[in-house]
């Protein structure tokens, strides 16, 4: 193979060449330029224009959560391969010296690391459930929250739309089955209208989460059979395998049971959420309208910049 020949320039290479993303040497971990952040901020505002009138309580968590809450959430049952846990050095001087030697020798230095009370947030809503549970039974009209957080998933990839650290905006609805399924149906319509206004090709389809292992096939099949998850897909890295940019999820009573969240009538609460992949939408816009935002279609610029 020719070592000096130019390598194919994929979308990721173009994003780095144009300066929109900044390479850190780790797949899926990138810096963002001011322009990239501007597009994210404009899209963030657009979401609020569609959902802000619903009166959601705004909550922002840091991109990490309590390890105890994480363990109780059940995330490790479904996605142990994606979790990121924070560890720290807890040894003595001798162990410290050994650690430094190991680093210098380029061998594993993590033996003395112990888990902390902190786990990286896997989805923006995970820190929310124990908070809602602590407040006691829901009011008669349930509850609605507006969240945004950086999230971590350990899935290094050359696909720029599959980052290890990315932002997820979410609206999360708590209530009776009727209340939360109505919320999801509303957002299925709204989400499509909102994304059509951005002039990108899209499709909505039934989907499943990437449950771990062979047994996870059963969870995935059941999720699809029960139509619990829909995704709004936009081609970014590939036309054949378009990327999920928004997702519409009905958790049934999974989180209500896990956290003991009750409706005003004393039933186990059901929950649903709509999630927006902020970087993925920005990438879709750059992919379909080009790297020069001044040259984007006027209709799209009007929607984002007003």
């Amino acid at each position, binding site marked *: 193979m020719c070592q000096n020949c130019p390598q194919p320039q994929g979308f990721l290479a173009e994003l780095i060449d144009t300066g929109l993303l900044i390479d850190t040497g780790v797949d899926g971990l990138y810096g963002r330029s001011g322009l990239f952040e501007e597009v994210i901020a404009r899209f963030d505002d657009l979401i609020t224009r569609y959902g802000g009138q619903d009166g959601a309580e705004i909550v922002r968590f840091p991109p990490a959560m309590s390890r105890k809450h994480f363990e109780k959430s*059940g995330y490790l*049952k479904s996605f142990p391969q994606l979790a990121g846990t924070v560890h720290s050095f807890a040894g003595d001087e001798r162990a410290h010296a050994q650690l430094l030697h190991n680093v210098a020798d380029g061998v594993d230095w993590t033996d003395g690391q112990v888990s902390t009370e902190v786990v990286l947030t896997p989805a923006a809503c995970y820190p929310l459930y124990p908070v809602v549970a602590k407040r006691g039974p829901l009011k008669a009209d349930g509850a609605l929250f507006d969240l945004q957080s950086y999230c971590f998933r350990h899935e290094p990839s050359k696909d720029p739309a599959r980052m290890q650290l990315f932002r997820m905006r979410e609206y999360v609805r708590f209530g009776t089955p009727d209340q939360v399924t109505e919320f999801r149906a509303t957002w299925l319509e709204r989400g499509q209208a909102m994304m059509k206004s951005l002039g990108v090709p899209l499709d909505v389809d039934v989907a499943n989460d990437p449950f771990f292992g062979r*047994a*996870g*096939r*059963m*969870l995935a*099949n*059941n999720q699809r*059979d*029960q139509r619990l998850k829909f995704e709004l897909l936009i081609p970014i890295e590939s036309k054949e395998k378009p990327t999920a940019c928004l997702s519409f999820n009905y958790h049934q009573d*999974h989180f209500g049971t896990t956290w003991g969240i009750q409706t005003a009538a004393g039933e186990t609460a059901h929950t649903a959420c709509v999630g927006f992949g902020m970087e993925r939408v920005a990438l879709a816009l750059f992919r379909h309208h080009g790297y020069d935002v001044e040259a984007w279609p006027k209709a799209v610029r009007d929607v984002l910049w007003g």
Partner: protein
Amino acid sequence: MKTKIREILTKTAKLPVDVATLRDDDDLFNAGLTSFGTVELMMALEEAFDLEFPDKMMNRRNFASISGIEQALQSILSEHA
């Protein structure tokens, strides 16, 4: 076979009701069988009957009742007979 299925249900599925009170056709999901309970049940059945559920049979329908589980197991066993 149903007796063995009931034994495995009692050990693995952690139902909130006594398995002995369930009829063969009772809906196990109504009786409290959860998604993860279904996964654990499947893995225990595979070990006990020395078989493997193919992808196409990994769904709620095949775990909806004791009779349904028996039919699923017989179907897998007959395909590999």
